[in-house]
Structures are given as structure tokens and as C-alpha cells.
């Protein structure tokens, strides 16, 4: 990890923070975004998660790159708030880092960052446009594991006085830029403006999902945005605006990683000198995978670093929270045997659960498949009957045609059963199924009936597999 003198962190961190209007010293930096997030997003209708502060700060997460809906975006805000906090620090400390590192600011962070200065102090707003403008859905991870950051105490609130002092002493000149930036942001979108106004009211919690969406727009960000210095950032801001409207829905579909892809990733990283030294851009180039964007690589790199860092210093983050095997070991027997056996038992139970899950899943797939097939047959039959009706020249179609007579009542029964949505214990489809069975028999088609029967067979098969499982299990336990 890059060594950064603590002092410089303090200073630039403070300036960055203050620019966001995040008042208070560094100590409050981590907490502020989260508290504000929680405050501002409470009223969002569809958001069900309010992550705990601790979680936010201790689990930087990669941001989902997809923006399917407004709510989805806002959801990302939550998940990425931790990233945001760390992003904050990171950007403040490394002005000269490659832009690829800086760009991963969460797009949503714009909402946060923007809201913060406005709501905090009007007089001492500092322009740090780069932070909000440098937004990306990704969290560049390199600093997340930096011990310097992790040491920042997560305490509370906002001490505006402190901020103002810092602001005045350091970033006086930036005020103009801030104005410009604010203007530009506001001209970006009227809705955004209205949101800003709302935010200006202290602790306004009525943020709409729209806000998040707007946030996404300007944030598509300038990968080119790296500097923390105001002047270049202003320029890039100007660049931002035109493109923001073009990038309305940042197309960053969620990437599904595979072990093979990961292997390629690890190779690339190793070639570049390890997880600490490798940069997302470099890795991306080396991997040469189509459709892989730098954001994907960034978030993956962050996860990768976290995974490596933790096991070396501790037993792995999740284990601490999750299992109490450590308790067992301390209370348990002298021999390591006890622990091993307990672990074995745990394994067995887990294996069992997995087996059952697989069985269940296969069943579900089969059931739905059958349902689909039945539906298809039903449709076919329906269209067949319709054709008959149409082809018949008799004006009194449904009743008169001799061909149609047999099917018609059945058909109309089926249709009515569908329309009336029979609320029988066995369900509509079941009804349809039995109807189909009858009609198919009438029409001489045996297939339908057999298909329906198949479903029952599948279920019966479940019990057949159990003796096999039992045998398997007894083998294991031996």
C-alpha cells in the first residue's frame, strides 16, 4: 500500500471533507456520510435497508454496476455508502493517483456529497467538484485496506466550527469554483435543483429516488477525472455536463464472475506484481476480456485485496462474526479431536442441507417445466378449436358444428375456468390440467394425459431417492 504520511492525510483529508461540507475533523468523516445517508434516505419508499454504521465502514462493498430502476440505484447508494466513506479519504489523500483509482467514486456519492455541503454550511462551502464529479459506480478498492484509513475512528457528528476554520485557511480560493460547480450541477437538471433545495433544509429526508437517478447521470463520470485540484476539475466538470445527459442510463450491467475469469484475473494481477501494485487499468488490459469494464475490474480488485489482507491478519472476517467454533475450542476438550469432530458434524449438516436444496431445486424446475408444457398444450388446443370455429361456415358456430360440439363445451369450460379463476383447493392450473386431460382423451390425444401423469411420477421419485441417500449417508458416517 502506498505510504502516506499521516499529516498529509489530515490536511488534504480535511480539505476534501470540508469541501463536501462535511464538517468536523477526520474523525467524523466516516460517520457523516453514513449518518447523512441514513437520514436522507429514510423516507425512500422502497428502500428496506438501513445498513448499520459499523457495517458501512467495515465492509466496503463493490457497487453493483447496474442501474435498473430508481430504487435499484438508491439501493446501491446504501451498499456503496461504505465505499463512499473510504472513497472520500482516498481521493483526499491521493491527488496524484491514477485517474482509474479516483474515478470509482460512487455515482450515488454525488447525492451524498452534494447534499452534505449544502446542508452543512452555506458560508463555507468548498468546491471540491472532483469528488462528486468523479463518480462511478465502482469503488476503487486500494485504500480500503489501508491501515491509515481503518484507524479513523467512527464517531459522530459534525462540528461545523472546525470545518470552517480549515476551510478558510486552506481553500479560500476554491469558493469560486464551488459556485461554478454548484451552478453547473443545478443547471444539469431541474429536478436535481429541486432536490438540492430540499436538501438545503436541514436534514431533509424527502429525497426521491429521482435524485439518485440524477446522480447517476452527471456521475458517469469522467474516468478522466482524477485530480483533486479545483481547476482541472472545473474543466472536467464542464465536460461532465454535456456527457451527463448523454449517459442517462449508465450501462453497467452486473457482471457475473466465474472461476475461470477469476483465474485470468489473478494471473494478470500476479504479472503486474501483486494485488497491491496492480492497477485496474493494467489488469483490464492484460486480461483482454470482451465486455469487461474497468469498473468490474476495480470492484473485483477491491474484493480480492480485502480477501487477502484479512486472512493474513486474522482468521477471516466472516468467521469472526459467524461461528463460535472458537468458543468451542476454548471450552472444549484437550484433544484437537473434539474440534475436528464438531467440524465434521457441522460439515455433515451442511452437506445435508445442500443435498436437499439440490433436490428441491430440481423438483421446482420440473414442476415449472410441466406447467409450461401444459400451458402450451392448452394454447394449442385453444387455437385449434378457434380454427375449427372459424372454418365452420355455420353462423351458429359454437353450438351447431358437430365437430366442435365435443370440444366446444370442454373448451368453453376451460376458458371459463380460466376467466372465473376457480379458486379450488387444487388451483386453476390443476383444473385446466384435468380439463385438458379429458379433452385430450376425447380428441384421442394421449400425450397430454401422459404428461400430466409425469409430474406425479417426478414427485414419487423423490421418495425413491431417499433410500439411496440413506445408504450414502450411512457410508459417510462409517
Amino acid at each position, binding site marked *: 500500500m502506498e505510504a502516506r504520511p499521516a499529516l498529509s492525510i489530515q490536511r488534504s483529508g480535511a480539505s476534501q471533507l470540508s469541501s463536501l461540507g462535511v464538517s468536523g475533523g477526520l474523525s467524523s468523516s466516516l460517520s457523516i456520510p453514513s449518518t447523512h445517508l441514513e437520514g436522507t434516505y429514510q423516507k425512500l419508499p422502497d428502500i428496506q435497508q438501513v445498513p448499520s454504521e459499523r457495517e458501512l465502514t467495515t465492509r466496503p462493498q463493490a457497487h453493483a454496476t447496474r442501474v435498473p430502476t430508481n430504487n435499484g440505484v438508491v439501493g446501491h447508494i446504501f451498499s456503496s455508502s461504505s465505499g463512499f466513506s473510504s472513497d472520500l479519504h482516498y481521493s483526499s489523500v491521493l491527488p496524484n493517483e491514477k485517474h482509474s483509482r479516483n474515478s470509482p467514486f460512487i455515482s450515488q456519492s454525488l447525492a451524498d456529497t452534494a447534499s452534505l455541503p449544502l446542508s452543512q454550511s452555506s458560508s463555507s462551502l468548498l468546491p471540491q467538484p472532483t469528488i462528486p464529479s468523479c463518480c462511478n459506480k465502482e469503488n476503487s478498492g486500494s485504500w480500503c485496506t489501508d491501515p491509515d484509513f481503518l484507524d479513523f475512528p467512527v464517531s459522530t457528528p459534525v462540528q461545523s466550527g472546525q470545518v470552517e476554520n480549515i476551510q478558510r485557511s486552506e481553500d479560500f480560493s476554491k469558493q469560486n469554483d464551488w459556485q461554478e460547480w454548484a451552478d453547473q450541477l443545478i443547471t444539469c437538471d431541474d429536478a436535481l435543483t429541486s432536490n438540492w433545495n430540499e436538501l438545503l433544509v436541514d436534514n431533509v429526508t424527502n429525497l426521491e429516488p429521482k435524485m439518485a437517478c440524477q446522480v447517476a447521470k452527471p456521475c458517469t463520470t469522467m474516468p478522466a477525472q482524477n485530480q483533486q485540484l479545483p481547476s482541472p476539475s472545473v474543466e472536467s466538470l464542464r465536460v461532465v455536463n454535456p456527457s451527463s445527459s448523454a449517459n442517462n442510463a449508465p450501462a453497467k450491467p*452486473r457482471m457475473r*464472475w466465474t472461476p475461470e475469469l477469476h483465474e485470468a484475473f489473478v494471473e494478470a494481477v500476479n504479472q503486474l506484481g501483486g494485488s497491491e501494485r496492480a492497477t485496474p487499468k493494467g489488469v483490464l488490459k492484460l486480461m483482454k476480456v470482451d465486455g469487461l469494464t474497468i469498473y468490474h475490474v476495480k470492484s473485483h480488485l477491491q474484493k480480492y485485496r480485502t480477501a487477502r489482507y484479512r486472512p493474513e491478519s486474522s482468521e477471516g472476517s466472516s468467521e469472526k462474526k459467524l461461528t463460535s467454533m472458537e468458543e468451542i475450542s476454548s471450552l472444549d476438550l484437550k484433544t484437537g479431536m473434539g474440534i475436528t469432530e464438531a467440524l465434521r458434524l457441522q460439515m455433515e*449438516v451442511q452437506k445435508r442441507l445442500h443435498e436437499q436444496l439440490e433436490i428441491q431445486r430440481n423438483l*421446482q424446475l420440473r414442476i415449472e417445466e410441466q406447467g409450461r408444457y401444459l400451458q402450451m398444450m392448452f394454447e394449442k388446443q385453444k387455437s385449434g378449436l378457434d380454427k375449427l370455429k372459424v372454418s365452420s361456415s355455420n353462423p351458429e358456430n359454437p353450438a351447431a358444428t358437430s365437430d366442435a360440439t365435443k370440444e366446444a363445451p370442454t373448451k368453453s369450460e376451460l376458458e371459463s375456468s380460466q376467466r372465473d379463476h376457480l379458486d379450488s383447493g*387444487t388451483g386453476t*392450473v390443476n383444473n385446466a390440467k384435468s380439463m385438458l386431460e379429458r379433452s385430450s382423451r376425447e380428441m384421442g390425444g394421449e400425450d397430454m394425459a401422459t404428461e400430466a401423469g409425469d409430474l406425479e411420477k417426478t414427485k414419487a421419485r423423490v421418495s425413491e431417492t*431417499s433410500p439411496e441417500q440413506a445408504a450414502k449417508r450411512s457410508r459417510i458416517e462409517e
Partner: protein
Amino acid sequence: MKFGKRLKQQIEESLPAWRDKFLSYKELKKLVRQISSAESCVEYGKADAEAEFVHLLNNEIDKFNVFFMEQEEDFIIRHKELQQRIKRVIETWGPNGTKPSEAEYKDEMAKIRKDIVNFHGEMVLLVNYSNINYTGSLAKILKKYDKRTGGLLRLPFIQKVLQQPFFITDLVSKLVKECENTIDEVFPVEQEDEEEIVKEQREAITIAGKGIFRNTVAALLSMQEIRRGSSTYGHFSLPPMDLPDSDLIHSFQLNSPIPIV
């Protein structure tokens, strides 16, 4: 016990970070009730309500997908790391390693064993998560919807769900299996008096608090319960589950605030 309650219980037993990632069954159920009670209203109202319902469901699905894929990604990374770690330990402190040291080796292996088992557990729980959200929640809520409102939402919607990333758990299952293989290699083959083993196990489990193990047990039992049969058992319902050693598993429910009946 009603499904909603059981789901809630499952969620409570689950890993803290996951708790809000499940389907908001209660909310959706409320919505369905609202819709059905307002059925006397105009057709327009109904279509609107359905749109809202679908919209909410889609959001939930997105939530699942995102969470699932993130976890999956994490698992892929950790899986590889574990394997490398094992290799490293064997190479360094193993009998043929560069600095053979039985004590260190044993120590490290013990840690690895623990980590692997927990890792395995987490993966299985993710598969379980996927399953709960599908069977338990989505399928159920859709069935409720159709039943209450006479809609035909279920079939087409469920088809769509089947293709969602969160439902396609093949990769995680594969990792689970690989993990099991690794575990077999890493665990010493021990022979001990059976009675003693069982006794130790019981003691060990007694002390076990919340965690993966607890969650796993809860999951198994819930599954069994859910499939015990319902009032609307039909061709789209799952048959009762066959869970060997069910009694043993039931006995693991110690210190459980909410007994899984």
C-alpha cells in the same frame, strides 16, 4: 406455523448481514390483500395495482440478484485463496516442505479446516437463500396473488424468475462440491471410539452459539416444515421432504429463542 412467521424466523436465524436481503414477504402480502379487497373497483384500478405489484416484485428480484452475485464473486475469490493457502501451508510446514514443523503444520491446518468448513457453510447458506426466496417467497406470494385476485400472474412471472441469476445456483453448488473434496483431503482420517465422539459432538454443539451452524440447522428444519403440506397443495406444490436424521437435527436446536416446531 404460518409461512410468514416461519420465514421471519429463518431470517432471524440467518447471518446478520443477510437479513434485509430476503423478500419482503409481509409487505407484498399486505399489498395483495389490499388489491383483493379493492377488487370491486374498476378494471383500471386493478391493472394499476397489478403493475405496482409487479414493479415491487421486480425490485425485489433485482435486490436478490445483486446480493447473490456479489456473494458469489466473493466466494470465488475466497475459494481460490483457500486453496492457495492450503498449498502454502503444506509446502512450508508440511512433512516435505521447506520448513517442516509438525506443530505449526497442525496449527495451521486446524485453522484452515475451520475456515473451510465455515466457508462451505456460507456457500450452502447462499444456495439456501436463493431457494427460500424462490420457493418460499416468490412462488408463494405469486400463488397468493393469483388466488386472491384471480390473476394469471404466476406462471409467466415464475418462468422469468427461473432465469434470474440468483436462481441459477450452479456455480455456487459446484464450488460447494469442490470444497467438500478439499475438506476430505484436509481432514485427518481419525478413528475413535464412536460413543466418545457423539458425546463430544453434543457438548460442542451445546456451546455453539449463533452462526453458520445454527443457520444451517434452521434452514433444514424450515424446509421440512414448509413442505409438510399446505391447504392448497396442488400440482405446483412440492412434495413432502425426506430428511433422514431429522431427529438428530431437531436436537440441535439448543438455546433457540424461537423453537422451530
